[in-house]
């Protein structure tokens, strides 16, 4: 299926289309492959998760992944939020990019689920997006963005675990 | 005939296409023929209406427009259980018009 010209094309597009990125390291310069393709080979370092994929299939390989793209073909399909959190919970440190039908009003939740870069299918208004990222002054629940939930702040503990 | 209805974006009020703008009264609805989709698309894009859709209608003995389906007749009138809140609060016939 690979077509060199459009491959180069899509590579260029991909880099350009990352509209928001919350990390300093270099961007991966090759396109992401499917989960199936990724698990079956050893040299790719970028993988793309579709809604029906099981993010846990990637867990044995986290060490060699630099970029995971999570595709949202339609913003109403929320499986990608679980996929992202599962990867972060398992200790994945690389780039986690939301791509596809990524809209203003989903940004704050995506960020909380561990996404640190965003490549919306349609470019977003910068001001609206800035406001959206800053929606929550505090947060009610623990996620994977490192923010201490309100109930932890109330009781002056650093993490939510109680052991009892 | 085919008439076009929808809701006013800001107020949510039920509205009917009268040929040049949106009316609260079903009596004003005009036959849109084959133009429903294009009018709906334009008006929705202009944000004058939300969820527009075309329906079948007839005219009753008095020549008043009458939507073919009971749901649209109730939309045209208002809740049958609160005559005071309908568009025809003083009309004792309003309830039977719906059925």
């Amino acid at each position, binding site marked *: 299926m690979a077509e060199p010209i459009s491959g180069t094309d899509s590579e260029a597009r991909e880099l350009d289309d990352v509209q928001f990125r919350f990390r300093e390291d270099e961007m991966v310069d090759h396109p992401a492959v499917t989960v199936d393709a990724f698990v079956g080979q050893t040299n790719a370092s970028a993988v793309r998760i579709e809604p029906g994929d099981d993010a846990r299939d990637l867990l044995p390989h986290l060490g060699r992944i630099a970029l995971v793209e999570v595709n949202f073909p339609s*913003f109403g*399909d*929320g*499986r990608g*939020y*679980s996929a992202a*959190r599962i990867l972060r*919970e398992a200790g994945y440190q690389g780039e986690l990019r939301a791509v596809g039908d990524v*809209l203003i*009003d*989903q940004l*704050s*939740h995506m960020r*909380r*689920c561990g996404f640190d870069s965003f490549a919306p299918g349609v470019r977003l*208004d910068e001001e*609206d997006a800035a*406001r959206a990222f800053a*929606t*929550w*002054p*505090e*947060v*009610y*629940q*623990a*996620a994977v963005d490192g923010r201490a*939930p*309100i*109930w*932890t*702040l*109330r*009781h002056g*503990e650093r*993490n*939510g*675990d109680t052991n*009892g | 005939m085919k008439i076009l209805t929808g*809701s006013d*974006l*800001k*107020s*949510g*009020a*039920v509205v009917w296409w009268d040929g040049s703008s949106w009316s609260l009264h079903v009596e004003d609805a005009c036959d849109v023929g084959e133009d429903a989709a294009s009018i709906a698309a334009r008006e929705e894009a202009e*944000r004058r209406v*939300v969820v527009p859709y075309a329906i079948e209608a007839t005219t009753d003995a008095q020549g008043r427009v009458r939507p*073919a*389906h*009971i*749901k649209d007749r*109730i*939309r045209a009138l*208002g*809740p*049958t*259980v609160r005559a005071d*809140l309908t568009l025809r609060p003083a009309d004792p016939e309003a309830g039977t018009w719906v*059925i």
Partner: protein
Amino acid sequence: MYQYDRYDQQMVDARVAEFRDQVRRRLDGKLTEDQFKPLRLMNGLYLQLHAYMLRVAVPYGTLNSTQMHMLGTIADKYDRGYGHFTTRQNIQYNWIKLEDAPDILAELSTVEMHAIQTSGNCIRNISADHFAGAAADEVADPRPYAELMRQWSSFHPEFSYLPRKFKIAVIASETDRAAMRLHDIGIRIHKNDAGELGAAFYVGGGMGRTPMISHLVREWVPLDRLITYAEACLRVYNRYGRRDNKYKARIKILLHEIGAEDYAAQVDAEYQQLLDQGVEPPFAELQRIRTFFADPPFVEGLSDGVDQSDPAFAAWVQQNTHLHRVHGYTSATISLKPVGGIPGDATAAQIHLMADLAKEFSFDECRVTHAQNIVLPHVEQRRLYELWQRLDTAGLATANLDNIGDIIACPGLDYCSLANARAIPLAQKISQRFSDNGKDAVIGELKLKISGCINACGHHHAGHIGVLGVDRKGRENYQLLLGGSEGADTSLGKITGPGFDEDGVVDAIEKTTEVYLAQRQDGERFLDTYRRIGMEPFKEALYG
């Protein structure tokens, strides 16, 4: 009652600001209706038959008088002077303007209220036993757990785009007064032999077009693992619930397809994994919340007993009061089902009055019940007569709780764009008929529930008698169901046979009650008789 601290207030304020911005972007054309719809739904705003409709959350059904007054004020200021209390203990306004919605939410936020997650494919407002904190048979007040879950589920980053809506109910007694088994998750707080409290999780109940009773997936979740376990339940659903067909997207279908055991095993695996993630709140938080639900200052040493020499009052006491766990007190239910009235509707004036009464008679507290009535949970028995007189003057003393006149009805085709048939006029005719013929009281407990379409907002599957509105060649038509129940003995009703038109179904219901009256044995409720004799005698009478 729970009170916001600055964090809770900040969060609700942030939501108001966010929604104001979303409305602005919608009106500016930056959001299409398709994009805006899920956002407005997550703030309780529907587009209905006649206008926008706003559903305001009443977490676990509990309100203080200030909040209740605000509900009345909103009815007057932004709506047409009334509101509709729903089976999920919320209130709906039918005539809201989109432009006003952010201001309404801002006003609500001044009294610690909101419309957050009262619709949309997210975790909805959490309901609870309406006699919580008052019922003699509870092992604990279920509301602290509901409040903890309210916080956890609010703006949950992972679970805001679930396959479908998600409803949770919490109870803490054997008797289920919250239709717990018909929720996506039902939680029953109970005590083990050592006297400790834990939570039983029932998953996969629901009504709608495929009604199902939930499965017990875990008998005992320690209270300091409640959130972790709930998170696991939701994650499995978010990942594997069906998204290809919205009618098969509720969690009940997932459990039905993979089996409750398989689901429980997957939840367990997820739970084990989540235990290391620190998602559980500190136990101190649960304790903090509990202090808000401590007993009000009950007068001690009161004795039980009410002078019932006034027969109208006596009828109301017998019908509309519920055993309180403190001597000398009772829980009084204000029926929003006047004979011939609209079930669940209350005018602004009535709402204000009920707020005043909550303040004067019930330690500033009232409750919304899933049967669309209002409860004053802690009334001194010696002041009951005075309360009743006040209610009676305002037309709010109908003594028909749990009787055939205490009908649950959804808005139906008078207000709802999904409806096939009207539900309210039917309820009005039925309550009028059984009041006129004097049979309401003779029949005793009979829960009648009407939905205007298969979505079952009126709980028709769970009615001793249920009525479902259908569209028959463009005419309203009604199917009759018998034998449903939503208590501890939850069961789903069965359809009697061909449907009826509006007058026909009222007659059919009367015939059904005649069969019951002829066949009942000592003390049997309609439901008991039905269960003993089965469907046949009723069919015979209806179609024979």
